[in-house]
């Protein structure tokens, strides 16, 4: 269980990295497409169409952010209940809260662009917290003798 906790927390951190790469890739592709004569207007935004391949970055970002990361964060919390890691539940709750906040900031950015900026900042906070959580869990399962000590700590 501790190992699972550690892995899930690292996966959350890795997902933040994937999200950053995906969205930056999309923005670069958008700039490249517009430079080549592509026209971005509301009709284009509302179209599902793959006008340029970097749009997959946006799709990955959306699916990852709205479904995959929240599911992992939730799984982390559930694993925390069983893993008996000191502060494990607390850090899993923080990961989950920042994940939900991150999604809401993302949607809010459509309405208030400044929220999009905070979305970028919160990503770094989530990345850090996920690493902290991962490092709370020992890399190997403790031997029975030390398990009691750690479990009470």
């Amino acid at each position, binding site marked *: 269980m501790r190992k699972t906790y550690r892995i899930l927390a690292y996966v959350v951190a890795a997902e933040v990295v994937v999200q950053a790469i995906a969205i930056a890739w999309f923005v670069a592709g958008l700039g490249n497409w517009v430079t080549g004569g592509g026209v971005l207007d*509301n009709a284009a935004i509302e179209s599902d169409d793959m006008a340029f391949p970097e749009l997959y970055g946006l799709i990955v970002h959306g699916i990852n952010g709205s479904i995959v990361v929240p599911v992992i964060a939730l799984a982390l919390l559930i694993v925390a209940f069983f893993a008996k890691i000191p502060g494990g539940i607390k850090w899993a709750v923080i990961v989950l809260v920042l994940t939900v906040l991150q999604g809401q900031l993302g949607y809010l950015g459509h309405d208030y662009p400044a929220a999009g900026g905070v979305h970028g900042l919160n990503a770094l906070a989530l990345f850090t917290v996920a690493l902290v959580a991962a490092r709370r869990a020992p890399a190997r399962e403790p031997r029975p003798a030390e398990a009691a000590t750690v479990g009470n700590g």
Partner: protein
Amino acid sequence: MAAGVATAAIVGPIGYLWQDSLLPDTYSAMTMGYADTGGGPSHREHGGGRPVSELTVAAGRRADVSMTMVARFEGGRYTINGTTPGPPVLAARGDLVEVKLVNDNVPAGVTLHWHGVDVPNAMDGVAGVTQDAVMPGESFVYRFRADRTGTYWYHSHQISHEQVIKGLFGAVVIGGARTDTTALVHLYSGGKHTVNGVAADLPVAAAAGAKVRLRIVNTDSGPMDAWTGGPYRLLAVDGTDVHDPAPITGRSVRITAGGRADLEVTAPARVQLGGSPSIVVGTGAPAVGRPSAVVDLLAYGKASPVALGPVTRTFRYDIGRRLGFVDGRPGNWWTVNGHMLPDLPMFEVSAGDVVRMRISNDSGEVHPMHLHGHHMLVLARDGVAATGSPWWVDSLNVADHETYEVEFVADNPGIWSDHCHNLKHAKEGLVVHLMYDGIATPYVIGGRNAPE
């Protein structure tokens, strides 16, 4: 033990919400959601009543305009009689129009919806509500009276998001003049902005000084601005003439998704259409940047009295967004009055009702709201009353944080969709229905029918 309880406390409610959101394989529009009577008398039990299929124009009369439209899927496009856009339906006021839709090879089926034309309910073309989708080898005959002049359009209302973006649409002009130009603005899947299916400026021959009426149709899923350098007039909105329209300079006209605007320009003029190609009337007019100001239709044209009579039902149509499940899929979904698909309100009306509706949007995105079978009179926006020409719409651009008050007369019995014309949003559940007393539908959504 505690860990198990904590897990159950998280997984249990999520699991319940998930399974509660699952849609049955097929369901009737009549049993969807919950009844909202708007303060009027409640309907009797649904299920009985006159079937929508009987709500047609009188049989026997010979059609004045008769067309056959063959729908095909070819080369990644949906075509009608081999072209996209399909052929225009051109009728004089009062004509009986008859269109035979034939599905040649569209596997998922097709229908035709006459956007903005207040047809009898059986002719409305909504798969699963007013008819079954027309499958390959089948046909369906649409008949309606062209009783109001104006600019309209037709499009598929089966898997509408995909079929419209890939080309299954065309123009309907009632009472047009030979010198008018119709411009269907469309972004095809593949990234090409087009006017009348061509990714290049639309030339219109006109001598300098000549006045030309341009009938502009926004067939996309988001609002579009149209503007031109010289003075121009907005003659009609959604098919209804503006009363005494004044010349416009330095402002653009916003046309919402599904909406239409008729502009009168004096040659030479270059009418620009969002990020799409332009309409070039005559020669020599330069391109100009988009004006930042938009014509406010609340105050455009001269007022003229409209009496719809005392209001008999009042509804609210509040659009929001929240996390949850729709048909088992997690996401940040649209809500109507706080409810998500399928738990949406069913607006119950009786023939003759005068209906007041408040449409408000706090969902973070714009919604082009389209009511089938009726035209709505805009009374106010954000508490500011309309002072211009009576502003009649079938497609209303409701921006984020806007609230509109509209009124309409329930004079066309049937079951009518009232939905967002960002067809992606409609697919995601931003669709409610207006249901008349004593009417029933024998059709079901699901199975072959996916109106979206």
